[in-house]
């Protein structure tokens, strides 16, 4: 099963490679990984999307917790949570397609953030599957570039991953 694991990590050089190294050394999957500092500058928050059986996920969580720089960790997938990912997509658009792609972008609540004579660059946020759906919908219009941030997640309601 797919899991979204959020980690509060000491904001230190090398912490990221320790997490990445753990995954490659033990052969765990990484679907995506994002990391950035938080409101507390001593901490980074990392979001890791991985998949595996319950036993594997249990090991992943335990092994992550063993890393000295991991301060706190939560499996978002265990409770109700919100997941978002951002995508920047550059599409070649000429003629009729300019109107059509703009409409499509509106339907997906995307924003066109850059326009040239032959291209649109669209910014889109949502779950991974929404972004997939947009790419699908673009159909035969040539896609020049896709940049995805990887998923981030947060728990709903009062629950919060903090110190």
């Amino acid at each position, binding site marked *: 099963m797919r899991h979204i694991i959020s980690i509060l990590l000491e904001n230190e050089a090398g912490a990221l490679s320790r997490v990445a190294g753990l995954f490659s050394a033990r052969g765990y999957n990484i679907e995506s990984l994002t990391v950035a500092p938080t409101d507390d500058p001593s901490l980074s928050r990392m979001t890791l999307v991985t998949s595996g059986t319950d*036993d594997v996920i249990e090991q992943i969580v335990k*092994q992550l917790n063993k890393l000295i720089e991991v301060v*706190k960790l939560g499996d978002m997938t265990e409770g109700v949570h919100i997941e978002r990912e951002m995508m920047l997509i550059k599409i070649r658009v000429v003629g009729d397609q300019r109107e059509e792609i703009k409409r499509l972008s509106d339907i997906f609540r995307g924003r066109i953030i850059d326009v040239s004579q032959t291209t649109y660059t669209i910014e889109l946020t949502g779950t991974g599957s929404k972004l997939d759906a947009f790419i699908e919908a673009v159909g035969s219009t040539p896609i020049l570039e896709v940049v995805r941030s990887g998923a981030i997640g947060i728990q709903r309601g009062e629950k919060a991953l903090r110190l």
Partner: protein
Amino acid sequence: MELTGAEIFVRCLQDEGVEHIFGYPGGAVLHIYDELYKQDKVQHVLVRHEQAATHAADAYARATGRAGVALVTSGPGATNAVTGIATAYMDSAPLVVFTGQVPTALIGNDAFQEVDSVGITRPCVKHNFLVKDVRDLATTIKKAFYIATTGRPGPVVVDIPKDITAEKTEYHYPETVSLRSYNPTVKGNIRQVRRAVEIMLGARRPMIYTGGGVILDDAAEELTTLARMLDFPVTNTLMGLGGFPGTDRQFVGMLGMHGTYEANLAMHNCDVLIAIGARFDDRVTGNVEKFCPTATIIHVDVDPASISKNVKVDVPIVGRVKVVLQDMLRELAKSDRRPDVEALAEWWKQIEEWRSMECLKYDRDADVIKPQFVVEKLFEVTGGDAFVTSDVGQHQMFAAQFYKFDRPRRWINSGGLGTMGFGLPAAMGVQFAHPDETVVCITGEGSIQMNIQELSTIRQYGLPLKVVNLNNRYLGMVRQWQEFFYQGRYAMSYMESLPDFVKLAEAYGHVGIQVEKPEDVEGALREAMEIRDRAVFLNFLTDQTENVYPMIPAGAGQNEMILI
């Protein structure tokens, strides 16, 4: 007053109470060596290869329970140390390794003798640090010792750029450190402990299986009390030998691939398994699908990640082994239930039947020297009281099977990584920790040559240790597998052009003794033990084709042993 980084380094070691460090100098650590030279509180031991420094420091730690310390230079010094670091990592030994590094400004420039030591060692350390500011040096060193010795112990590397050792700052060594992200569990959940005790008291065919965790946490006494109170059989892993007295009736021997028949069958047939400070390693479990099919499993370990990693357990208890055992003893004393004496008597009867197979028997009338015989005689001659280190191979298994360790920290070997070359430097480390004790390295002619240069270190420091070379002219363990699984195609397992070990020992300034006949074994051992002022190298020409029995072939269950 401001001190240089090198001065601070040495002061930290002194304040940490470090008496010995094992190392080898080089450009990046010369400031540090200069400071070591000016004092005599910390004795520096000059090895002949950095791998030996880490093994010696590792074994020093294993023999004492205190952190072992090694110091090496940047680049090749650090890479040479890696095997020793990985060895300590796999066996959870508390080791602190200091590596020199090129000056901060040159890091990343492919400078002379630069290597990314933090990157190279990352997968085989508990933690590592690169010191970037001299003001962090003392705290980092304190953290390194703290992390190495607490929780599940392990090696910590501290990489120190050369400029940091020259810069100055005020010295303050913190008495304690705390890390918000590192708080190892000490006490087990008491409800789980009670549940475990209830299950133990209801057992009809119980089995206690303990590993290196009992040794590392100095919990042998608690374990022994518990086992005696309950009259349960005990088996130890290779790393756990000495955790329970090896000569005790309740001890059924080592388990696993080359464990005893009785230990493995008792494991296979038990209804309650109490695993303490052990990690269900593949050499222990054999095929996990067939492992302990009828047992309710209780597992005590300080490392939560060891629990239910290879084998799903029913009662996990995370905590220090010693503390949990103390709680178990308390709960047992409180309970008015007692173990089922009749069921236990029946179980013991069964175990005795397995034991009567005498799975460790070997040909005692052979006219060549049997390696088992040498170890048995060594046990007798040393009164079972020596510190024994070993290398890796058949001789290691014979040592584990035939030397009955009654006390913890006396058996020191590379179990997890299986590092040939560990034994001799390990014996040096132990001898430094216990200068008046008998220290013996049991080795093979293959392994000993991996760090033979340390005979020179041993001479320099006048260490009176004994090398027992079980010389079968084969990479015996490899030969055994080739005999069993490759139809006797002995690819590269025969050792030709061996040195004359007696002359070699003499060349290094030691006593060399050649032993070729079974009737000379005991006399030679006695003679060697009498020599207290020099090292002795005993070269036993042993049976070339002897195999280690019993054996669970890879992929088989514990009840599928090959007996002799």
